[in-house]
């Protein structure tokens, strides 16, 4: 429901060949993208991939070198940040240290000249919505905890009543457990407000939890855009596949017999279909799709190695299997844990349909 909902509306934000250069460096390189009204869109990329520069251009804090930004079809390149109906939650949160929680939230309304009584009413309403206790209204914002400060920053942005909210890695400095809670809260707030959220992060895991769609950025380019499921199951290149987490990436090429050959493993691998024109690249196999094979088990792809070590990951366990010089990662649910000893010889295998072939 929520996924398809985003495609019902037209795009609220359109990027056309958006480019930003700094001297010889092209930070953002000719990006084309449509973001739908009410969508939770996340841009993921490592640091230096240009995602922050891109977000700052959308918010109006950075000038585009070339290309267009359209808001509901109107070009907004030359509209300064303070006149755009958009608002940013900063990485540092940028809460005003000389103001109370209430004054921070009321800031955009004060600037707009809203009557003080109405300001307070709206601020308290936003505080309720974000589960900030009412007596925090007069609290020194520098004395709030990390999670509380996140909520104040979000409340302040919502008080501006923007059409689009931008987020610049606001959760990156927060510990794991709280981050997980805040990710869910943010997604709930997205649902409640129905506003368009554009979020950037370096964590694909974070993006997966919250987003309707994800765009993966690398070296200034948007290399794949899709739903979390599409990004996870059909990455378009090696970079995207490795960005998601632990994967087995095997260099392969086409042998004389037309089959996939791996020199590292001295083996042939099978996949359902080799794309036309493919000559070499990588075969990507997720650890959870690899099985330990019993003596009688058949498998399309099969390797023999030794279990070198095991790592408990809570509900799952990872195994490092060494096949000759190469390392293979196998992941099992705890209930299906490997029962043999370390250094035992094992056979591992996976179905060709569970592997992904990328051409770089």
């Amino acid at each position, binding site marked *: 429901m929520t996924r398809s909902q985003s495609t019902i509306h037209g795009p609220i934000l359109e990027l056309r060949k958006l480019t930003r250069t700094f001297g010889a460096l092209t930070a953002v390189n000719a990006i084309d993208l449509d973001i739908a009204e009410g969508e939770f869109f996340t841009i993921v990329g490592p640091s230096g991939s240009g995602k922050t520069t891109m977000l700052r251009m959308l*918010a*109006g*804090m950075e000038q585009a070198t070339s290309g267009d930004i359209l808001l509901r079809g109107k070009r907004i390149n030359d509209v*300064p*940040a*303070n*006149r755009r109906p*958009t*608002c*940013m939650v*900063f*990485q*540092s949160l*940028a809460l*005003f*240290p*000389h*103001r*109370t929680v209430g004054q921070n939230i009321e*800031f*955009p309304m004060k*600037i*707009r000249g809203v009557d003080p009584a109405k300001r307070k009413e709206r601020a308290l309403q936003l505080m309720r919505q974000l589960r900030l206790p009412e*007596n925090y*209204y*007069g*609290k*020194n*914002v*520098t*004395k709030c905890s990390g999670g509380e400060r996140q909520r104040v920053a979000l409340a*302040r*942005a919502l008080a*501006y009543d923007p059409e689009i909210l931008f987020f610049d890695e606001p959760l990156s400095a927060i510990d794991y457990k709280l981050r997980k809670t805040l990710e869910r809260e943010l997604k709930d707030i997205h649902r409640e407000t129905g506003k368009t959220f554009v979020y950037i992060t370096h964590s694909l895991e974070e993006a997966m939890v919250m987003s309707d769609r994800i765009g993966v950025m690398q070296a200034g380019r948007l290399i794949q855009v899709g739903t979390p499921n599409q990004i996870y199951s059909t990455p378009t290149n090696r970079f995207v596949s490795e960005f998601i987490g632990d994967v087995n990436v095997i260099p392969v090429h086409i042998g004389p017999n037309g089959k996939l050959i791996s020199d590292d493993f001295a083996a042939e691998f099978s996949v359902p279909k080799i794309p036309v024109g493919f000559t070499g690249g990588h075969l990507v196999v997720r650890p959870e799709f690899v099985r330990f094979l019993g003596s009688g088990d058949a498998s399309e792809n099969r390797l023999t190695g030794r279990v070198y070590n095991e790592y408990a990951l809570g509900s799952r366990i990872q195994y490092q299997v060494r096949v000759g010089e190469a390392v293979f990662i196998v992941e099992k649910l705890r209930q299906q844990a490997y029962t043999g000893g370390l250094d035992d010889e094992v056979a591992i295998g996976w179905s060709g349909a569970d592997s992904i072939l990328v051409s770089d």
Partner: protein
Amino acid sequence: MEAKQTNWRNGLVWTWSLAVVAFLYLPSVCLLLASLTDSRYFTFPITKWGLSWWAKTFNSLEIHALFKTSISIALCVTVISVVIALFGALAFARYEWKGRSIYQKIVLLPIFFPQSVLGLALLLWFNALGLDLSWKSAVFAHLVWIVPVVTLVISIQVYSFDPALEEAAYDLGATRWQVFREVTLPVLFPGIFSGMLFAFLLSWGNFPLSLFTTGADTTIPEYLYAKMVAGYTPGVPVLGTVNTFGAAFLLLGGYGLILWWRRSRIGDSKE
């Protein structure tokens, strides 16, 4: 054994600290004592205690004129230097631009010039320009030395200022002026206030620059020096005491004001 050694060490730390404090502050106390005499000359120990020189000093029209000159210079220097230093500090500490590091060094260099040489140079310069020397020319002389100091003091606050605060305010609809008034100025205010105190007190106590550049006008430090050289009366320590303790009270009062501001501006009471 352990405890005994710690006690001994604590005692040593305390004795040392007290010795340092005494070394720093005893001269000022002696100044106060020297002013509490009723005799005409400088004698120590005091033979005849009294407040007559305090009364004479406060009733003297000449002294009133000195105060007026010193305060006029210090106030002008404070206002002008804080304005120049605030924007200088923003350029100094905030923005990345070509030549910034050279600018930083050039701005700070006058602090290390010997002040009497700087005073002489300024005197020659003012003469070359054909300016009439008065307390007004001294204001410019003080600025040459005090603006760098105040720039340094304010830039410390600017360094700890997160530029995202300004961007956030701008993004939330504020104009450039509103950003400055609502965010930049109040957040930097403790630094600006310290800069004001520095400017006032450095100007108030300055002797070498004033000596060369005040012309016919006389500041309190100049008067103290002149009277020490020729015509000592116990009015000198009176004026010195007033000068020193006045500055100290201004500093402590300013510090108290900053603390009070911090508490009252951010409503902790309603927690």
